[in-house]
């Protein structure tokens, strides 16, 4: 009994330290965001003496973060929807359908995961420009889809590979078409994985700066993270305003975690142990 108590502490203390290391930067940012620039310069670590939410309001109003938020919602929703559709279909095909070159194609998809975006920036920029998609939300939706599709395919293929072939064959016997199997069996079975992949992709898209900067060049079309990054000038010295913008930008992400934490956990667990 006593041994169990000691073991619990041995696990709990490092976990507590890890939790503190995770939470501290957020609390530091919150504290900075509630300070004036003067307070920050004189002592950045001290608790805010005169708590103020002016930096949040300024970041939201004068920096146009409201419009940027809407832009982020549009491109994130569009990209995630497309990624889930294409990723689940490809995952189904790679894991359950037999066709020539299946393994090679899957390996190519995996290979695409290893290409950093910086390597393909120039041709990517050219193609989008020639297709007339620069500075359009559709262009960014397609860019995100192209960038994150290999990861989505990989996860969905791994998940669907654990679905027993018998399930598919039973559906065939019952007269289901391939599309029917996808719609009536694979999509419902894959729901936990789709939710996890969807949330992960939403976070990737929401937090991206570089691709968005490249595609959406005018201020009115910018996404939220780009807007927040632009709050810094060459070497911006108004860190409290920047901290306010950062917190405004991550607020929806925190909400997603708060509301979907059970589904995220369930999805990851289901993906890991299915079959």
């Amino acid at each position, binding site marked *: 009994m006593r041994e169990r108590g000691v073991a619990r502490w041995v696990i709990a203390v490092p976990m507590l330290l890890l939790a503190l290391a995770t939470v501290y930067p957020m609390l530091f940012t919150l504290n900075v965001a509630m300070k004036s620039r*003067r307070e*920050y*310069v*004189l*002592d*950045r670590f001290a608790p805010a003496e005169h708590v103020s939410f002016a930096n949040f309001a300024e970041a939201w109003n004068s920096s146009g973060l409201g419009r940027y938020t809407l832009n982020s919602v549009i491109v994130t929703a569009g990209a995630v929807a497309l990624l889930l559709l294409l990723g689940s279909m*490809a995952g189904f*095909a790679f894991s*359950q*359908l*037999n*066709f020539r*070159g299946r393994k090679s*194609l899957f390996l*190519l*998809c995996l*290979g*695409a995961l290893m*290409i950093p975006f910086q*390597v*393909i*920036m*120039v*041709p*990517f*920029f*050219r*193609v989008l*420009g020639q297709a007339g998609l*620069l*500075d359009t939300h559709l262009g960014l939706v397609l860019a995100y889809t*192209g960038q994150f*599709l290999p990861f989505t395919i990989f996860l969905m293929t791994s998940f669907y590979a654990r679905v027993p*072939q018998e399930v*598919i*064959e039973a559906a*065939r*016997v019952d007269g289901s*078409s*391939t*599309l029917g*199997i996808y719609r009536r069996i694979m999509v419902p079975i894959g729901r936990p994985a789709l939710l996890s992949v969807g949330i992960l992709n939403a976070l990737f898209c929401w937090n991206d*700066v*570089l691709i968005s*900067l*490249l595609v959406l*060049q*005018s*201020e009115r079309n910018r996404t939220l993270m*780009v807007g927040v*990054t*632009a*709050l*810094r*000038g*060459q*070497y*911006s*010295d108004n*860190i409290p305003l920047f901290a306010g913008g950062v917190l405004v930008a991550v607020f929806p992400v925190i909400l997603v975690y708060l509301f979907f934490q059970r589904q995220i956990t369930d999805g990851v667990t289901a993906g890991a142990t299915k079959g």
Partner: protein
Amino acid sequence: MPTASDQTPRWFRQPRRSWVLAALAPLLAVTAGACGAAAPEASGGSQGAAESGKLVVWDWHSGDAKTKAYYDKAKTDFEGKHPGVEVEFVAQPYDQYYTLLGTAIQAGKGPDLAMFNGGAQLRERAASLIPLDEKTKDLSERLTGWDAFKDKGTTYAVPITLQGFPFYYNKSVYKKAGLDPEKPPASLAELKADCAAIKKAGTACFNLGNKEGLGIEFFLSGFAPGVFSPQQYDAWLAGKRDWSSPEVKQIFQLWKSSNDEGWYNQGVNSTAMFMDQFTMFSGGKGGNVIGLISDTAHWKDFDEFLGPDLGVYQPPVLNPANATKTYLPAEGGIGYGVMKWTKNQELAVDLVKSLASTDALKLFYGNAGAIAADTTIDTSDATVPAVKSIVSWLPDSKPLLHTALSAKTLDLIHRLSQQLINGDVTVDQALTQLAASDK
């Protein structure tokens, strides 16, 4: 029993070719990238330019509230002269700026005008800009700092501000250390004595952040006027750099020994120069700092926090046998260039002129604290004593030494400066590597 593939409907089987293409897309993209990098388009046309009546300008300042009046003024002036032509300023984050611009240049598609730092950043991209010597003759007298925007004698951007590295100091820290607050160090002996006293009083003598390796740029350019003879200085700027000279060695040895002697705040290699180094100085946590005269970390920023305690001095004379007289290292800071692919280049040059107009630059100086490149702007009514000193030193100033180096050598010097502080390389080893890189 039929297998899944046997039963795969036609609609599902048909897209196989598309799948192959989709799977090959990253490979094709990489190949195209390699080709693109080898042979960039000479021109691609801006998105609109004259046709759409719109000029797009990239910079890293127009999103800053302090520069709003300047940009509004330039835009109003230009649009007043050219009704129907719209100007759009796109503020890019500085840390991504040259990556984005590099992509635009490779693709031959991007803004009509772009902001540049003088020196290596401009020179590396000169091939994408139009020469401006003939088109901006009318500005040559009024503006100064042109040399920083030249490549092989041709001007590619118009200077808007000047940039330099004066030594700022905190008079109250000097007082606390028992030093004369009106007598900043003028020699190596005084510098060392002052630093020892300030350290003894419990404050960092200098604030330094070298996380990005930028500290050595400030150190080299900042101290060089007090070490090099005028001839050596000019030779360096002209590309005749002797990395094995005793003078260069003296600067690098001081960089190392100053850290060993504890001149700086703790954690130099993990402290960001922008803005932690300067925030520490503004917050009274350091006696001295090598700062800027424009953009940020300048007299106006420091005055906001230190007020009458802010002092400024020129580089101390560290090598009296060579440098009998010291001066402020300063040159063109930022400027605007016109991209080659811009369709209506005359219009774009006209916008550069609006951005460089005296009325607009007065606002840049007054609101943002930038020392404008315009020699006609009167600064005599300045209320901050530091700016009066800086402006009075400008006529005798010489360009910064580090901006004469290539981007490749600058990268190396950043890394070596961190290794010197850590004790991973010796001064001689560092200088040998730099000499090889700077050939």
